[in-house]
C-alpha cells in the first residue's frame, strides 16, 4: 500500500478518534439525563422520534465508529498477526459495513 493511502488512513484514524471523544461526552450527558430523569421507554422514544438533531448526532457517531474501528484493527492485524493483503482489506471492509448497518439500524429504530 502506498504512502498516500497510509497517510489518509492515519488522518482518518486521528480525526475519527477526536470526533468519537466528543461524541462519547455528549452520549454520556444524554445517558445521565435519561437515567436521572427516570424516563420510561415511551418517553425516550417520544423525544427521539422525528428529532433530526438527534438523528444527525448519532449518525455522525456511527460513522466515526465505522471509520475508527476497522482502521485500528487493521494495524493490529498487520503488526501482531502479520496479516496483510487484499483478504485483510476485504474482511475489514465487511466488518466496517456490518458496524455501519448495525449502528444505523439502531439509530433508525429510534428515529422513525
Amino acid at each position, binding site marked *: 500500500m502506498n504512502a498516500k493511502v497510509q497517510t489518509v488512513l492515519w488522518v482518518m484514524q*486521528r480525526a475519527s478518534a477526536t470526533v468519537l471523544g466528543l461524541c462519547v461526552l455528549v452520549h454520556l450527558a444524554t445517558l445521565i439525563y435519561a437515567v436521572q430523569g427516570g424516563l420510561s421507554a*415511551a*418517553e425516550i422514544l417520544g423525544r427521539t422520534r422525528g428529532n433530526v438533531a438527534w438523528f444527525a448526532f448519532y449518525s455522525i457517531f456511527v460513522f466515526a465508529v465505522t471509520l475508527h474501528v476497522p482502521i*485500528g*484493527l487493521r494495524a*493490529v492485524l498487520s503488526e501482531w498477526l502479520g496479516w496483510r493483503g487484499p483478504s485483510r482489506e476485504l474482511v475489514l471492509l465487511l466488518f466496517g459495513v456490518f458496524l455501519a448497518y*448495525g*449502528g444505523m439500524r439502531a439509530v433508525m429504530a429510534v428515529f422513525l
Partner: protein
Amino acid sequence: MRNFALIHRLSGIALALFLPVHFWALGQALEGEAKLESFLRWSEQPLVKASEWAIVLLLAAHLTGGVRILMIEFLPWRDWQKTLAAVATAAALAIGLLFVLSSTAHAQSWPQKPVKFIVPFPPGGGTDISARLIGQKLQEIWGQTVVIENRGGAGGGVGATEAAHATPDGYTLFFPSGSVVTANQYIYAKLGYDPERDFVPVTNVVSGPQVLTVPANSPYKSMKDLIESGRANPGKLYFGHAGIGSQTHLAGENFVYQAKLDAIAVPYKGEGPGLAALVGGETHFFVGNLSASIGHIKGGRLRALGVTSKTEAPQLPGVPPIANFVPGFENAGWFGIVAPRGTPKEIIQKVYLDTKKALQDPVMKEKFFAQGLAPVGNSPEEMARAMKEESEIWKNVVKARNIHVK
C-alpha cells in the same frame, strides 16, 4: 509510552468485539416501546450491569491511551504533562459513567423491607379495594410485603397529610382516589398538604365509572322515579358520600347539579361506611364506585338505577347510563399511586414500570374488571398532565356548587 499504546490496543480489540453485539442488541430493543421496556428491565440484571462496568473500564482505558497518543503526536507538552492529561481524561470519563451506572442502584436494591400504601379511606371502599388488589400483585413482583394502611377522614385529607410528611424513601407511597389530589385543594380552606407541592405522580392504576344506587326496599325503582321525586320534593332527598371532597361526593354533587335537583349531601368516613348507611336506609341514594357498590348490588342489598358512563357497564347489564335521563352526564373515578416529593426518581420509575407490568397480568385484569375497573398504568408524566387537566375541571365544579369547608 509503550504501556499506554498496549493498553489502547488491547482495550480497542475488546471494544471492537463488543460493538457488533451492542449494536445488534440495541437494534432489537429499540424496535418498539414494548421491546425497549423489556430491554430496560433486562439491563437491570446483575450480570448485564457487571458487563456494563467492564465496558466502562475498557472505554476509559482506551481513551487514556488514545488521548496520550494524540498528545504526543500533536502537542508539544512534556511527557509527564501528557500522562497526567490522559489519566485525568480517563478518570473523568470513568467517574461519569460509573455515576450513571450507580444512579440505578436505588432502584435495584429497592425494596429491602415492606412497602406501605397509605389509603386515605377506611376499608371496603373503591380506593381500598384497588390498593389491595394491586398491592397483592406488587408484593409478588417485589418479594416484599405491601402493607395497606387505611387513614380515613376529611375527604382523604387525613391520610394525604400523613403521606405528604412521610420520609421520601420509597417505603411510604400514597394511594388516593383522584379527587384527593385534584379537588380537595379547592374545597378545604385549611389543608394539611398541597397536592402539587407535596406529591409526585407515579401512575394511575385503574379507572372506572360509578353507579347510583338506592336501598333494595327503596320506593325508587328507576332513575326516572328518583329524579321526578327529587324535583317534586326539593330538599327532601339525602345522598351519602365518602367525605367532603371525595370522589363520591363530587360525583353526587355533579349528578344533583346536572339533574337540577335540590338534594342534601351527607358525609361519611369513607365509601364503605357510606354504602352501609345506605343499606340501612339512612340516606336515599349514593353515587359510588362500581368496585365498592357491586358486592351490595349482587348481594341484593342495593338497587342500581344508573351508571355514570355514557354506555352501560358490562359488569352491570341492564343498568342504564344516567345520561339517558340527564343528557350529557358523565363521571369517572380513578385510583392511583403518588409518592411524597423527594422520593428517588429511580424508585418512582420502578414502581411505575412494575405496576404497569402487574396490570398486564390477565388474572389482575379479570379481578379489576369484576370490580368495574379498567387498568390504566400511565407514566408519571402522563399522570401529571391528566391530574392537571382534571384539577381544572374540579376547580370549576367546586366553584359552581359552592362546596367549601372552612
